[in-house]
């Protein structure tokens, strides 16, 4: 379980998170939704230990994020792989650090995502880079999977492949996936829980199905309403 306790984080005068308390339940797919600048990426980075809270605490299974990196697989929005590596070299580099690396799954996903191991990261298309990042993240059997804007700037066919890959290997009840995106429609059918963030604060949160039934709205409509009310 991941827990945010009254977390605040600012970058200069910009408030990214403002006294936020969140509980990310274990074994679910959680959507972290909101417009640009809502605090989604900062939340991800706090869980991954790439940022530190100004105030409050973040706990991953009761421990500091710095001590739980082994259990978290992180897919950042930006291209973070060494451009001079090919896919095989990147996989070889990453697999050294994680005991949960699943070689069979990696081999299967290379085929499934239509990638080749000799593809050089600096030479491949944006869509292929997105798929490579996904491949290297999902090839781990990590208890926590953080995906920061995995669909951003990706064409519709690649988006489908990415979502299908996630569904294909998701271990319900065992693995926790947190997806941050502002493209809710694409992942609406995927998420169990949702958190709507805006300007560093939670506007709405809860079980996705309950919210839909309760308010008779899709998640996209719910987000629009939540943010309209906030204004």
């Amino acid at each position, binding site marked *: 379980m991941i827990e945010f306790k009254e977390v605040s984080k600012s970058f200069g005068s910009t408030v990214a998170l403002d006294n936020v308390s969140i509980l990310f339940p274990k074994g679910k797919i959680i959507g972290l939704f909101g417009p640009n600048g809502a605090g989604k990426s900062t939340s991800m980075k706090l869980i991954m230990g790439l940022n530190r809270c100004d105030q409050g605490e973040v706990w991953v299974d009761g421990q500091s994020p710095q001590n739980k990196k082994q259990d978290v697989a992180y897919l950042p929005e930006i291209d973070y792989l060494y451009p001079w590596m090919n896919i095989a070299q990147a996989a070889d580099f990453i697999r050294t650090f994680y*005991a949960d690396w699943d070689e069979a799954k990696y081999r299967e996903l290379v085929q499934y995502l239509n990638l080749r191991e000799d593809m050089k990261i600096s030479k491949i298309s944006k869509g292929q880079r997105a798929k490579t990042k996904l491949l290297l993240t999902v090839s781990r059997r990590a208890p926590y999977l953080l995906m920061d804007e995995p669909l951003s700037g990706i064409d519709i066919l690649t988006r489908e492949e990415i979502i299908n890959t996630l569904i294909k290997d998701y271990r319900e009840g065992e693995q926790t996936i947190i997806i941050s995106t502002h493209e809710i429609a694409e992942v609406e059918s995927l998420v169990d829980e949702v958190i709507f963030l805006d300007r560093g604060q939670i506007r709405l949160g809860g079980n996705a199905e309950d919210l839909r039934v309760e308010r008779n709205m899709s998640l996209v409509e719910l987000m629009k309403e939540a943010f309209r009310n906030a204004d």
Partner: protein
Amino acid sequence: MQTSGWKKFFKLYTKEMWELRPEIFIVLAATLVIDILLYFKAQEFPALAVAPLMMILGLAAFLPFISSFKLLGREWNFNTVYLLLSLPVRGGSILGSKLLALLSQYIIGTVVVSAGGVILAFLLFPEPGLLETLRTLGIDTRIQTMLSSGLLFFLMTLAGMAYVICISFFSQLLGRLVKRFSSLVTAVVFVATFWLMGKAMNPLWQQLENYNQVHLNQYNFSLAALNQVLGISTLIMMAGAAIVFIAAVLVYNHKIEL
């Protein structure tokens, strides 16, 4: 299966060495070209070979310092720092692997250039022979002398390089803590750290200087004393490097954010 810390460290080191290939190749290629050129062109005036050899040695010795900025700075420029910081390893391994790779670059470069220079010297001074020439100049050419003093001198320069690289890491990391004028902060911190560490180590250097004046002067020179001075200098610089390295690791572990 859990991977050992050493294996992780070695993987990081291998990655850094891979990134340093161009610089290592430049030094090796330049050494080869210059040595061949000098062999054919400096037969008549062998002394002329000294200047180009010194220049190439200077390049081999100086490049790791330049590379230290490339190796760490690139992680931010290419956003690979996201990958680095998300790995389950601490700053000691990250910075240690980079330091080791840069020292390897220094060793490869200086050893190759020096070896090339020595071979060239033997070829260019066939009669009465290089060793004979050195002996007539009053230089002790016994193998154990060459090895002990030469090795100690090399270790001292290696420690000096480690010291400078650690200051480079420390200043770059502090530079990354600010959003604006990062390069300026890096430059200021570099100079300030160099100056401060110099001040802090000054009493030790002073003591060594006093020892020098008594035991290593034109009237009183012993190889044992020279080796002692070289050894103590190495230890002082290693201590300085260790202090700055620990400071850099602390900044990396506790202050660096994205």
